[in-house]
């Protein structure tokens, strides 16, 4: 039983990180969103696995919530938003794809080094994997910085959020419910805000992509 739990946990957590790296690798917006969906599902798997292992009903609910929000709602909304954008590919990232992947590898190593320092406090099966979450955060952030398209940026932001959620699950087996609720709620609200923004900009129809906006400057 334990070994299944550990194997599932490792697989799911690895999937979260892998899908984060995949978002860096792929260019077409639709496949990036698909990766995001995969990541949501993997995250849900982590939560459910932990919940079953610890008999934590609240965490089970959280897992369900994650599946709904991150596996279904967010990618769907994003797909809709992406339709507004005529150029569906991330054509000119600030750092090109191969370099990004090399950089991501470096970030993963860094998070491993840093992560072990943190997890050494209580090195159990779940906590051990926390560096994977940290790496997801860094990779997501890297995407946020280097990808120009609005949708890519939102994806990066959500990857960061997912990474944090992964760290949260692994380190604490879920913080008190209200926080988790808040966090999921928040991601959803962020998406709503973003959709609103995109729509508004479309409405004004003068600027193609939000990220091209550089009117406000010193």
């Amino acid at each position, binding site marked *: 039983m334990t070994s299944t739990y550990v194997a599932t946990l490792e697989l799911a957590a690895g999937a979260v990180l892998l899908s984060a790296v995949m978002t860096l690798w792929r260019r077409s917006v639709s496949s990036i969103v698909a990766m995001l969906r995969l990541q949501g599902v993997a995250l849900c798997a982590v939560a459910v696995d932990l919940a079953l292992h610890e008999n934590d009903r609240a965490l089970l609910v959280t897992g369900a919530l994650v599946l709904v929000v991150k596996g279904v709602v967010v990618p769907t909304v994003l797909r809709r938003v992406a339709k507004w954008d005529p150029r569906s590919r991330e054509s000119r990232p*600030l750092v090109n794809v191969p370099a990004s992947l090399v950089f991501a590898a470096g970030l993963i190593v*860094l*998070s491993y080094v*840093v992560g072990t320092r943190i997890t050494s406090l209580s090195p159990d099966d779940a906590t051990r994997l926390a560096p994977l979450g*940290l790496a997801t955060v*860094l990779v997501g*952030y*890297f995407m*946020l*910085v*280097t990808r*120009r398209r609005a949708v890519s*940026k939102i994806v990066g932001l959500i990857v960061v959020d997912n990474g944090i959620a992964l760290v949260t699950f692994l380190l604490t087996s879920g913080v008190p419910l209200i926080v988790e609720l808040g966090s999921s709620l928040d991601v959803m609200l962020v998406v709503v805000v973003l959709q609103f923004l995109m729509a508004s900009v479309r409405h004004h129809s003068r600027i193609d992509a939000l*990220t091209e*906006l*550089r*009117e*406000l*400057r*010193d």
Partner: protein
Amino acid sequence: MTLLLVALGVGALAALAGAALARRWRVAVASTLGALGCVLAVFAAVTTLRGGATTTFHSAQVLPLSGVSLTLDPLAAWFILVSSIVGAAACVYNVGYAHGALASRPAQSTFMLFTFSLIAVPSASNITTFMFGWELMALSSLLLILTEHARHVEARSAALWYGVMTQLGAASILLGLLLVSSHGSAQSFAAISAHAAGLSPATRSLAFLLVLGGFASKAGAVPLHVWLPKAHPAAPSSVSALMSSAMVAMGVYGIIRVGQGLLHGGTVWWWFAVTLLGVVSAMYGALHATTSNDLKRLLAYSTIDIIGLVLTGVGAAGALKDSGQPMVAHLALGAALLLVLAHAAFKGALFLAAGAIDRSAGTRDLDLLGGLIHVMPVTATVIVFGAGAIMAVPTLSGFSSEWLLLQSFLHGFTALSTPVVIVMLLGTVALALTGGLTAVAFVKVIGIGFLGRARSEGAANAHEASRSMLVAMGALTIPSVFLGVAPGLVGAWWERAVSLALGRSSDPYTPSTGVVLARLGGAIAPAAVLVALIGVMSLVWLLSQNRTARHARRVDAWGCGRDGQTSRMQYTATSFAEPLQRVFADVLRPQSDVEVTHVVESRYYEQSLSYESRIVDVFEARGYRPIIGWVLRAGGAARRLQNGSLDRYLAFGFGALIAILVVG
């Protein structure tokens, strides 16, 4: 202390009256209350100077997180005396002078605030109270400079220069004081004084240099003076008078209070630096005063000159105390204090008179004035007395203080330490070099501005100032003359102030109306000299009234036989100072443009010729402008940090995150 608190309270009332009352009553009521408060402050100061006890006041209910703390001791009282005398005169002057923007609510209220912050600053005895008063003084004067911004465009940039310099100065002072304060909670001057002895010499020296920078800038010492010749002329004259006579004195007060009172004198190098500042200021100020043509600018430069001499005295006192000659040190500091008071009186009167001229002739450019003695006889008399005092005409106040200064230098030469002797030598040289230049400057003021014939419509149609203005100027002339004729009568007062700063010592003075230094072998009896002068003058006058013509016959001016002299043929202020300007061209670096327009028909005939000459402040052009340029360029370059790119903004955070993970 009660009296001082009442005075400050009356001052607050005056400020309120200025802010609240309708135009009809505002100026009169505010000025009356202001003058009343100043007179009360004079009494408070005199009570302490006459041997009254040192009193303190503390309240935690005022000034959050620190509490207000006031101490009235003889040193503070001396400077309160300085500012309240000028303050009273300025308030009286205000009645007739305030017009237009200056009579508005904000201006009147701020004016009162300024007057009383000058009285509050010397009495402050903890860091917060001191800085509060100091900054309030700076702020209110800054606002007052701007009152006539609509009429004088240059006031805007003058205010900015002033504001920035005073802000830097205040920052420097604050840092210096904090460095020597024992604890944030124990920030009273008494605690600092007790604590300072245990500090390392390096800390104390650093603190003193910082504080010196701030105070010297306020006092207008070269090279920190650049704001002064801009700001003092730009302010309304009642304010210029206060700034130039009382506010610069606060810089001197600060140096004495911190250097001697809180830090106990330090080393000879501190005072060497002070002297050097003083010598450079005195010479530079005197030189620029001779070549300035704007009356108020000339007065401002002359302030730099006199304050330079004061600083020389302060520096000499510090150096002498350090070399173990306390009695001579007392003499030097006493001379400095006396000069501060004398300067306040005569410079105050001069600025007020300059305001009267500006108001009635519509210009302060000496090149456009002339002949004012015929239309403004009282103002002219005030100017003559003021100029006489500043030129150190014997029996006027400038003379007695400069004599004391010279005595201290002379006796200071007996010191065995070389730096001290060099200090004395520098002081002597400064005194010697400035005397003649000051005479040129003020002969120019009187001779070009008041004598001769009017050079412009404004000057020709000028009229005497209003009564309250004349009363104020006249009132300030009285202490100026009194301190010259009978300085000995207040000798005990300044000696008390000096003792507080330098510690008790054998008193060098012997009671007299003049100043008698029995133990050092020197004396002046200005009163007797005055009697002799008046006697001889009357005698000569009587003898020269010969039988043939009691009244002189009026004829055309001879002018070497040139018929039809016009006012344009007179020497102007520029031409008067031209020889000196040429002599000191290396320092002044005058720039001149000559533009010749030829007649169309022939190049041998000139249609018109224009000549323009100006003197820019070397320190401003070579020292300050480049720094300002660097700062502006840095600001321009920094704009690239915020270039509008979200990617860049996010990258800042990403870098921070990586750094945290690596370091943490």
